[in-house]
């Protein structure tokens, strides 16, 4: 059976390579100083989708991302690796969203898209690290959810079998389709960009990107629908203005504090109860725990 798979992805600042100017004075991220990348665990999710596409011929993988118009970059990135098409959900009204408003907006986009068997996403994004958006989308769509997925073992008879990576081991679960699966970083790495696909899909563009192109490039895009990246706004996905953007975000940042870690030199403890007991006493005494 062929599957319609939606992969949720986010363009994030590359917080793994943080330099001196990564943070602004006020403690917020200096996005200009950090390259914008495909959120790593979303790439793991994309790989799972592409594997299903291989084992289920005729399947379609659609990348859905919410962000600035430039997030079309990660749609192309997904196309280079094997995704069929992509949607950028972008609108000024969606800005400043917390996880609640984000998951609402994305759920609206998924509903608008319709016709899906499986929604995949990374466990969490490296900018916020909340791991809330995937599960919230499942709740909003009334779908079952499988988190911490490491491998999709099988999809058959309307059911998905997933291996989950938990703190103390692995667990294999089955869920009915459609459902939401969030994928762990321990899952298989995403395949590389493919040379031919890069040469083809480098021309893919969203409507706002196409605005800046030459007439001949516009005509080329018009003649090649597969190269058009959809761009949807809040109204198009019929989102309630009260539930999106800043207005729909109950999370308010009260203050951001710059914390400088003052780590001292490491210490090595022997593997015995008395040393561990000593350490616990010390941590309680200096109020680290307790």
């Amino acid at each position, binding site marked *: 059976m062929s599957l319609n798979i939606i992969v949720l992805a986010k363009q994030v600042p590359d917080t793994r390579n943080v330099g001196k100017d990564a943070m602004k004075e006020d403690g917020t991220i200096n996005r200009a100083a950090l390259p914008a990348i495909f959120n790593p665990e979303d790439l793991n999710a994309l790989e799972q989708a592409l594997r299903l596409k291989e084992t289920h011929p005729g399947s379609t993988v659609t990348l859905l991302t919410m962000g600035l118009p430039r997030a079309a970059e990660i749609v192309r990135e997904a196309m280079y690796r094997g995704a069929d098409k992509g949607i950028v959900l972008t609108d000024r009204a969606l800005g400043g969203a917390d996880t609640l408003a984000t998951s609402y907006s994305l759920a609206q986009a998924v509903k608008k898209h319709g016709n899906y068997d499986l929604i995949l996403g990374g466990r969490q994004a490296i900018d916020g690290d909340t791991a809330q958006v995937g599960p919230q989308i499942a709740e909003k769509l009334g779908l079952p959810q499988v988190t911490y997925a490491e491998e999709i073992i099988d999809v058959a008879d309307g059911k998905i079998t997933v291996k989950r990576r938990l703190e103390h081991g692995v667990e294999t679960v089955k869920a009915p389709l459609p459902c939401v699966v969030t994928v762990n970083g321990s899952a298989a790495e995403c395949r590389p960009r493919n*040379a*031919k*696909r890069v*040469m*083809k899909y480098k021309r893919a563009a969203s409507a706002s990107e196409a605005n800046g192109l030459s007439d001949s490039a516009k005509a080329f895009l018009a003649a090649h629908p597969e190269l058009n990246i959809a761009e949807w706004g809040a109204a198009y996905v019929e989102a309630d203005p009260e539930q999106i953007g800043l207005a729909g975000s109950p999370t308010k940042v009260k203050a951001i504090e710059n914390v400088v870690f003052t780590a001292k030199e490491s210490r090595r403890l022997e593997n015995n109860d008395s040393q561990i007991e000593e350490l616990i006493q010390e941590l309680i005494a200096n109020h680290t725990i307790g």
Partner: protein
Amino acid sequence: MANFYTDNADLKHHLHHPLMEKIVALRERNFTEAEKYDYAPTDYNDAMDNYERVLDIVGDICGNTIAGNAEAVDHQGASCSDGRAHYADATVENLDVCRKAGLMGMAMPRRFGGLNFPITPYIMAAEIVSRADTGFENLWGLQDCAETLYEFGNEEQRQKYIPRVCEGETMSMDLTEPDAGSDLQSVMLKATQKEDGTWVLNGVKRFITNGDSDIHLVLARSEEGTKDGRGLSMFIYDKRNGGVTVRRIENKMGIKGSPTCELVYKNAPAELCGNRRLGLIKYVMALMNGARLGIAAQSVGVSELAYREAHQYALERRQFGKAIIEFPAVSEMLATMKAKLDASRALLYECSRFVDMYKIYEDIARERSLTADERAEMKHYSRLADALTPLAKGLGSEYCNQNAYDCIQIHGGSGFMKDYACERLYRDARITSIYEGTTQLQVVAAIRYVTTGLYLDMMKSYAAEGFSGELEPLAERLAVLAGKYEAAVKKVSDANDQAYLDFNARRLVEMAGDIIMAYLLLVSAKTNESFVNTVKVYTRMIDAEVTRHCEFIDNCTTADLAAYGI
């Protein structure tokens, strides 16, 4: 996220050479394929953008997967059991990622599933792969056997085999035998034609790189009773048909991930490729020229890594209260390493562009007859490519060995340990000046361009480009060296003694190569300031080298050869 393409601006410099505009337009037949293939470029800039994007993928894979696997591949190595060769686990992963990225069959035409890249960006990819894992470059780089299959096979064979290579099947060239190494005329593997016209192969091949590949090009004796190269033909053996087993693999000093196989052919079915009797004299010569360019690229990749490893270590290692790079003895070594690296790279890409020029014309000649001008241009570049290939392979591989040596030297005692990459690099480098023709054989191939004056003509044409500012005195110095070289060639030629010429051949070829590489750096420095320093260092270095060789020749007469047992 490392990227071995984007972290090296010199690659982009060499890719964007003015001659590329012509190469690309010819290769793309004026961009007519764009209508048929959605990944074909529409114009020159689009094509260059494609090359850069694909090299970016190569750089990404190499920096983030293949380089990280190199140590594990070296430790595990390839193995042999049940008549088959087996790659190290990480080698399997490397091949898989290259296949998924669509990096096989890069230079093959689109109609067979290839990317239709010119040789130059393909060779650049080979250099990058070699920097990540020298031995893996062999496995990946054997895709250029498909070039020979394309050139000399019939259309049916092309359609049968080339798409498989583009899909990721590997190749090998089965040439060497226990008694036929450098002397391939002595090949004994027997090809017998059966009554139905098909062929079978029987015998043994040795030292076959990636000998358990999917598709083999095999040199075999098809003409019974013959003893020389004219009795040899080229065959295609398809592993799917069976008949060839791996008896053992060699336990090598380096490039351990690349299985070097001893093959036993027992009535192995094979297809004749091209015409009988042309196997060695035409096809294998073409195959070897392509392979030599590949080894030249592999050598530059090794030099690049050697320089980087040494430079990084010299920055970090502190002795006597400062980083060792601050000691002149170390910084001179590093500057010299960089100069040798830059020089061999400049030669590599000059050579690959010349190969592109004549090969593309050869290919166009398969579709239509060339005009007189085109034929003349093809011939011109063919000669230049033939002249530069042995220099790029011979001198580039010697430089990479020297750089690998100095890389360990800069690491000091630590470099002698297995803890640093330089130890592996030193072992991997060693084969580059041996296989696909030793440096001594490259000299044999190159000496005719010394005596016919082609190298001297090339020097003069580079000199004629004109240099100003701080490059002017360097150009003047190179003109003096070219004069010295000319005089040395004259002295050796005038002696009219073959043994005396053979004895001095390497000196003369090295001088020619040194001066040509210096000119190439000078040309690069004209448009790219970052080469100014390197051309200064290199010119000073080869000034001393050329002078040394001239002194040697001046002080050596035919009568002196006896002391060398000649």
